[in-house]
């Protein structure tokens, strides 16, 4: 093997190492939040955190000082950890549900403990309710389901506003020549100069005056301001990428300007429009800080997840479940949009 091919291989190896490092720096946190969302509360507060959630727990019941002694097998220390000593099966059932994600009715537990009359201990494998955190999240968090619906509403309205205003602005900037065009194009970006928090207070006042404070439409307007700027820039370059002759040809061959736009320009611009609606969606969907300030009784889903972490219900595994639940609509939306983003035609490109 000569030196040259050795060097080539070394370069390739370095490339692989770097790409693996980059990919894992993204995937590992995602994996962790995914895994945490399936942990029981007891597991979630162990140190170090388990890498894989357990699917089954080994439970031991025995006669204790006060009543029935509840223990769980701890793999790490290879011993049973005693959790509770009680005669109240209702309390035990609740404890198991909340801390261990195990669903047993008080009656079932009572049934099992009856065996203790004849034997010193009862050991059984219990199947963990893996979706427990998700169920709990939507039960205990104030408003989770309506908040989810509101968030979807807000995201869709934001897309609608930013595509209709930003898209037409982009078309104008791409196709027409007028005085102050470049100044206008740059000034559109000014709105993105200010962080959301900095302008949140004035926004509260303005929205309150408009009667849109604590309303989905109000938040959509705030988000749209930012995404209109991005949409304008993205669509400008898309429309520039569509040869003007394609539109002129349509006009020569009998189409009106509107018909040309619908039949020719729009289908060709679709991938770009899809991409910018993706931006608008993500911006509106993930935004938390402005939403926290601009809502009161009608929070968005992002706010609900945030409150699950810091509010009185604060539990890391519940928040993780909320976070994953929040990612699902994004994934669905991405899958729908992906079809259009890939649909590029000939030399028309984004």
């Amino acid at each position, binding site marked *: 093997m000569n030196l040259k091919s050795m060097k080539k291989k070394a370069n390739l190896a370095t490339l692989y190492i770097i790409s693996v490092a980059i990919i894992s720096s993204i995937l590992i946190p995602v994996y962790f939040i995914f895994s945490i969302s399936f942990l029981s509360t007891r597991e979630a507060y162990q140190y170090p955190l388990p890498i894989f959630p357990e699917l089954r727990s080994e439970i031991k019941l025995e006669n204790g000082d006060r009543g029935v002694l509840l223990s769980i097998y701890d793999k790490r220390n290879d011993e049973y950890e005693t959790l509770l000593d009680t005669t109240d099966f209702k309390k035990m059932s609740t404890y198991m549900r909340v801390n261990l994600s195990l669903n047993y009715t008080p009656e079932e537990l009572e049934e099992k403990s009856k065996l203790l009359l004849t034997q010193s201990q009862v050991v059984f494998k219990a199947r963990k309710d893996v979706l427990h955190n998700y169920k709990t999240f939507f039960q205990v968090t104030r408003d989770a389901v309506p908040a989810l619906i509101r968030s979807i509403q807000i995201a869709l309205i934001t897309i609608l506003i930013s595509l209709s205003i930003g898209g037409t602005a982009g078309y104008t900037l791409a196709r027409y020549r007028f005085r102050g065009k470049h100044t206008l194009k740059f000034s559109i970006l000014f709105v993105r100069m200010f962080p959301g928090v900095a302008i949140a207070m004035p926004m509260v006042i303005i929205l309150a005056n408009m009667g849109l404070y604590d309303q989905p439409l109000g938040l959509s307007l705030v988000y749209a301001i930012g995404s209109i700027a991005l949409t304008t820039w993205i669509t400008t370059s898309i429309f520039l990428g569509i*040869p003007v*002759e*394609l539109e*002129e*040809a*349509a*006009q*020569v*061959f*009998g*189409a*009106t300007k509107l*018909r040309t736009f619908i*039949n*020719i320009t729009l*289908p*060709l611009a679709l991938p770009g429009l899809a991409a910018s609606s993706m931006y608008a969606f993500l911006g509106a969907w993930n935004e938390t800080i402005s939403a926290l300030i601009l809502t009161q009784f009608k929070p968005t889903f992002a706010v609900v997840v945030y409150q699950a972490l810091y509010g009185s219900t604060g539990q890391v595994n519940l928040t993780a479940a909320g976070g994953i639940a929040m990612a699902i609509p994004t994934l669905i939306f991405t899958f729908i949009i992906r079809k259009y983003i890939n649909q590029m*035609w*000939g*030399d*028309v490109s984004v």
Partner: protein
Amino acid sequence: MATVELKQLKKVYNRKVEAVKGIDLTVHDGEFLVLLGPSGCGKTTTMRMIAGLEEITEGEVLIDGVSVGHLPPRKRNVSMIFQNYAIWPHMTVFDNIAYALKIKKMEKSEINTRVKEVAELSGIESLLDRYPDQLSGGQQQRVAVARAIAVQPLVFLMDEPLSNLDAKLRVQMRTDLKEIHRSTGATTVFVTHDQSEAMSLADRIVIMKDGAIIQIGTPDEVYHNSANRFVADFIGTPPTNFLSVLVGDKEEEGYRLKGDHLDFTANHPSLAGFEGKTVLLGVRPENIDVLPEAPIEAICRLIEPQGSHNIILAQIGEQRMKLSVSPDIGLKIDQTFRLRLKSGHYHFFDPETGERLDK
């Protein structure tokens, strides 16, 4: 079929730049007219004003005697072939051709027969289900042609339709376009900057420069009787040779012409009044004979073999000229030889205005 008339047609950009400076032109019924000129001469702008894609600053466009200046493109009953074909990438070949017919709300069966008909005429009947990105450049061009024929317009407009094709295909498409024109007989305006394309296609050529028409004529007229130095230089490969000569007094056989290493007589009536002045002599490369007894001495500097003939770069004193001669003459590089201008096949041009003297 139709005639197109341009009356004092003018286009001014940004209130300053005069792209087209008020031109008058009539395209006859069924004629293949070529607008020829270097880039920026206003030929494309003129065509776009006929199509309605460019607003008319002043003047009128009449199709069949009806002023169409205020009408949008779709109401002018013209069809156009664009330089980059401009066929819609998201539609199949069939849909591309049928688009205009669908807008006209034609019967479906009628559309089918029409599309098949024009596809056959342009040789793309097997490609109707394909998308443009699955076609070669030449095939895309044919789709553009088929689409233009399908609408059966009054006037065909073609904006440098062959310039994106490779050399061999271009020559072939030329022949095809001419055949299609003959079979449809439609009035056609064709824009190009390629003079050989213009020569081979046109019934009449309109030569434009700086937004104005320089000469209108058949290919033969503009080639053999170029109106001025610009046309003589623009038309022909290689172009006309120019030699500056001093006109002497009239002698028995004609005027005595003297120049750098030049001394001969020519009987050319247009030279009257130019005695004692310098004029430009223009002669086409094929109108020069190489003969041992000829009056002008030249040195052969370069030879460009073309198969059927050779192009010789000859040096006469400080001036250079190209001549097209038979390969049988057997000239060698740096060889001195003698040449003669074929009598009656050269013209004189005013060195200042560039106009031909015997116009």
